[in-house]
């Protein structure tokens, strides 16, 4: 255990003093801010251009229509079709709408345009529909109160019988954020872990290290070290993000944390991380360089993303067959259980069973990874084929 700790400490210290790591640490929040800021900026700079449409209004609804248009769409009256068309040709207008007297009975109108504008078409179409309905209802000579009564929308209220089953917005938010955080941890520190196993071979250090420590100690040390690095990264980013969230939004952070099922999130999150870490380090030990990673290695790297496929179906039907499967399948369960628990309280036995399967799988994968690691670390010069890896798994150690 002592050597495990020394390896972990070395990995942490080496990365903390590494320029690339520090740049990544500082750059990631900037990239995140850019991702949030960019759409806002685009929105601001991409204001729609002002357009003018002539309306040949033989019905008398132009004022109603203009009221329903957004600011940048101006509707102007034209006496007849020829006058409107002239203005379009002169460049004074972008097109014209022809409303003939029979519009109220046929519901039919024509939009002539110079260049197609989907937004104007959509806005006019829905405005016309609304006006048509209002006019027709008015023709039926109903009272205003009757009109309101006829057009009233239904209100469906959902009430959980057991308070614990009620979806808690705060709980869902914290769970969603937790899943994102776990994924960041897995992909950043997991890929660093893989690179670190790979680097051990690339720099030809594996033999020297293995003459000092057992392969299992080296592997454990690396997993713990990179987990700590991930936690350091996340703590740093959280320290930056939390004040921003509190300052710019009125989301009640502490209240939400209190509502969330933190022990469950920590338990499944940590196990999920350990499972994926063991997978990644095992794969890293079979590769000489990333560019030459084979299909099988690529598939394993994609495995953590598998849970994404299940998120939609699980939210739609939290107790369906797909949800049940995804709750016990160890490569998705650590995400799915957190999601399901956020939406409705789960029976304890389900959580227990899922946890037990996840623990067993994590142990199994770790043992396999340790075997692969032990042999793979000493294989210089090439990426291992799946056949070789299976052979390594069969080697018996006394």
């Amino acid at each position: 255990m002592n050597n495990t700790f020394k390896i972990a400490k070395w990995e942490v210290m080496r990365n903390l003093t590494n320029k690339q790591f520090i740049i990544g640490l500082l750059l990631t929040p900037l990239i995140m801010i850019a991702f949030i800021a960019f759409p806002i900026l685009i929105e601001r700079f991409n204001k729609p251009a002002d357009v003018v449409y002539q309306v040949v209004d033989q019905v008398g609804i132009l004022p109603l229509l203009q009221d329903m248009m957004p600011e940048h769409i101006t509707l102007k009256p034209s006496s007849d079709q020829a006058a409107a068309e002239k203005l379009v040709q002169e460049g004074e207008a972008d097109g014209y709408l022809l409303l003939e007297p029979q519009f109220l009975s046929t519901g039919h109108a024509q939009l002539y345009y110079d260049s197609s504008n989907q937004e104007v078409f959509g806005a006019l179409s829905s405005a016309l529909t609304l006006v048509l309905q209002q006019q027709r209802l008015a023709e039926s000579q109903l009272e205003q109160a009757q009109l309101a009564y006829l057009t009233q929308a239904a209100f469906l209220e959902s009430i959980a019988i057991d308070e614990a089953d009620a979806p808690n917005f705060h709980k869902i938010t914290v769970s969603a954020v937790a899943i994102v955080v776990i994924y960041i941890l897995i992909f950043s520190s997991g890929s660093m872990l893989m690179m670190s196993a790979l680097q051990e071979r690339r720099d030809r250090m594996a033999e020297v290290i293995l003459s000092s420590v057992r392969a299992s100690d080296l592997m454990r040390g690396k997993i713990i070290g990179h987990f700590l690095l991930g936690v350091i990264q996340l703590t740093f980013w959280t320290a930056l993000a939390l004040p921003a969230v509190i300052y710019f939004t009125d989301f009640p952070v502490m209240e939400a944390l209190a509502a969330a099922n933190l022990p469950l999130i920590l338990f499944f999150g940590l196990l999920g991380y350990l499972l994926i870490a063991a997978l990644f380090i095992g794969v890293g030990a079979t590769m000489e360089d990333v560019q030459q990673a084979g299909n099988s290695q690529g598939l394993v790297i994609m495995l953590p993303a598998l849970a994404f496929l299940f998120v939609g179906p699980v939210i739609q039907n939290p107790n369906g067959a797909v949800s049940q499967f995804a709750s016990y399948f160890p490569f998705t369960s650590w995400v799915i259980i957190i999601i399901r628990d956020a939406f409705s309280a789960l029976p304890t036995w389900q959580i227990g069973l899922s946890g037990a399967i996840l623990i067993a799988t994590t142990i199994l994968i770790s043992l396999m990874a340790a075997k692969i690691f032990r042999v793979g670390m000493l294989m210089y010069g090439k990426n291992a084929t799946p056949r070789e890896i299976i052979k390594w798994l069969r080697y018996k150690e006394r």
Partner: protein
Amino acid sequence: MNLLEVREITKNYGDKTVVDQISFEAQAGQILGLLGPNGAGKTTAIRMIMDITVPDSGEIWFTADGNRTAGVPRHAIGYLPEERGLYRDAKIVPLLVFLAGLKGVEPETARRRALEWLERFELQNYANAKVEQLSKGMAQKVQFIAAVLHEPKFIVLDEPFSGLDPVNQELIKTEIRNLAARGAVVLLSSHQMNIVEELCDQIFLIHRGQKVVSGTLRQIKESYGNFRVYIETEAGIEQFTKLPGVADVNRLSESRWMLNLQDGTAPAKFMKAVPDSVQIDELQIMRPSLHDIFVKVATGGENQ
């Protein structure tokens, strides 16, 4: 007293036997040369002795401070592998302290010793440099320091001289002798036969996973037999070929010849038979070199 005892270790990969029942012993202070052609099983044997890979059968015993243990304890091993490297982005002293720390040396002690060694190898100005800033020769010296910083009892050096200039080769040779003189067993694997002849007390030659020959240099040369005679003369070789005990003649150049004597022919007997009148410019009588024995074993696999 034997520090290291290796008893019939064997390793198979699939149905290929890479190391086949190898046994040897080494005493404190000995430098043992482990020789063999490429692919003979040297690296696998070394890895088994160091418990990096586990033998399929056989035993390894190690005695330190009066305790005899199965296998060599990891802290007692110093290893310079043939495939070598260092973490490129690491700084030299912290790296040396880390590696010694894995062997149980306290950071302060390791730092002090590292600085001493760097000074001895004239690398003191690089103490805070990164590995990637070192030349190949410098990196190799740092690797040597890493292998011996924790003062191991059992030191394995796999091709420690490859890529070193003659000055640095001498430096490393001196340090290897010092380490042995302080009571360590040094297991040296190298293809540079002249250096092996110079340094090693015992030699162990393997081929295709099996022991071919072992013993002191003299024993091996004796077992690999006959003397050879190098002659430089303008007189013509016929006068020598007729002498008793000469097996065959090889012409090296216009006036230089190599005679192989028959098995059991003593040099003195040959010399007595040389007529007084023969003009000799130069004459050497010698055993075959380790190089010759190695080539003989590697090409013919001859086992006497």
